[in-house]
């Protein structure tokens, strides 16, 4: 008799190539075959029996999914690259420091030693940092499936809580992120009760400043407050084409939750999360423009 604790029994397949993974996912689709990579998100859900795949296809040792490359305008990271590898890679610290900063927020070092960037994005936890980063940077994922290879933008990939637009038999093979130009300020801010917890509220900001201190191309993503990482479009619109002033940032920050239905739970009420979101966006915007050399009088928002 199998007791109803720990993961339910499943068939295990370790594959050597991405093509084999697709084949296994298709062959066992009838029993809800799923990819396991780092397992740091999937195994807790399986232990709680929230996820009951009949087959696990282990891609963690597929060579083509590991490793990364840097081009002048983008980075390409294999889906099975561990978060900790990204965190410690000096080439990312130089070329894309927002990625390094974001990965450091993911749980604890022991989790980052196993969890992978592809797994985190495919899991699409609404309070996770890496899916939010993909959306904020307008990144994309490379996908392999029974119909072949395709690329999916972050916006079309992340469709709801723990939900992506991946079709049956598809797996993420790589993540693509643009390299930021020298005129792009960025910041990530997050509030959680304990170090390493899921975000109660998180925000990632990118904004360009031209020579006249006009803000362009703002991208603001909120995570932890709704069903998925979401663009704060009202706040972005308040910034677009506007001269950078302290008042402008306050105005934008106050609009941060206009595009999302903020829900609360035992870890934080909706009202708390809304207030924190305003403060975090204000901090993040100031931090982002300071990175470009602009100092603004700092005042905390009191609501």
């Amino acid at each position, binding site marked *: 008799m199998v007791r109803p604790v720990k993961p339910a*029994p499943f068939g295990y*397949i370790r594959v050597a190539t991405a093509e084999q993974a697709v084949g296994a996912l298709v062959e066992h689709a009838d029993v809800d075959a799923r990819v396991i990579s780092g397992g740091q998100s999937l195994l807790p859900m399986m232990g709680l029996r929230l996820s009951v795949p009949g087959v696990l296809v282990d891609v963690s040792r597929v060579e083509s999914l590991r490793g990364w490359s840097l081009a002048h305008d983008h980075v390409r990271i294999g889906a099975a690259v561990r978060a900790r590898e990204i965190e410690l890679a000096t080439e990312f610290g130089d070329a894309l420091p927002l990625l390094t900063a974001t990965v450091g927020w993911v*749980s604890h070092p022991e*989790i980052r030693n196993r969890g992978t960037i592809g797994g985190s994005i495919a899991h699409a936890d609404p309070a996770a940092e890496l899916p939010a980063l993909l959306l904020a940077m307008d990144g994309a994922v490379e996908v392999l499936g029974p119909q072949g290879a395709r690329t999916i933008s972050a916006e079309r990939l992340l469709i709801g809580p723990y939900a992506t637009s991946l079709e049956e038999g598809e797996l993420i093979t790589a993540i693509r992120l643009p390299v930021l130009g020298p005129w792009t300020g960025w910041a990530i801010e997050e509030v959680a009760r304990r*170090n390493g917890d899921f975000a109660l509220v998180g925000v990632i900001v990118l904004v360009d400043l031209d020579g006249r201190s006009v803000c362009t191309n703002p991208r603001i993503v909120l995570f932890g407050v709704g069903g998925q990482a979401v663009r704060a479009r009202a706040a972005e619109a308040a910034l677009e084409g506007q001269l950078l002033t302290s008042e402008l940032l306050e105005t934008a920050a106050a609009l941060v939750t206009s595009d999302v239905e903020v829900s609360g739970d035992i870890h934080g009420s909706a009202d708390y999360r809304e207030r924190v979101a305003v403060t975090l966006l204000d901090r993040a915007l100031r931090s982002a423009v300071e990175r470009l050399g602009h100092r603004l009088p700092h005042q905390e928002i009191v609501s």
Partner: protein
Amino acid sequence: MTLQEHLQIDLRVNGRDEHAVVESRTSLADALRHDLGLTGTHVGCEQGVCGSCTVIVDGTAVRSCLILAVQAEGCDVRTVEGLASGSDPENLHPVQAALWERHGLQCGFCTPGVLMAAVAAIDEGLEPEREAVRERMSGVLCRCTGYQSIIDAIVDAAEMARQQSPPKAMD
């Protein structure tokens, strides 16, 4: 590429070749404890947040409750049992000795996790400074000590490790 529910796996644990028969769903923590009799690794939350199950796999600290035993096939695993050299309790690993000196344990439940996380962190060059230790060790929860004595011990151990092999100068 066969579908299996029961698997025979070979792995290296504390320097010894070990063989285990496990289900595919068996965690590394449970395989270590039940199949290999190494009960020093503890199971607390089984979700990766408490840190009691921390072991070192292929040189990095990981949660053994969030690794399937079959995923550790062919890997090099270090558990708390492998820290002291030999069976003589006098030959404690320096991190164990530091924890002992600073009374960094009471009930001992989190202690294997503390030790393995600390050993891995010190091997990676952990700075012997309270904030750095606090940050790095925040993944292991302790209900007894209030953490200060744990931090004291790891700062001591990190300092000793630095004295024995100073970090290379940056170019």
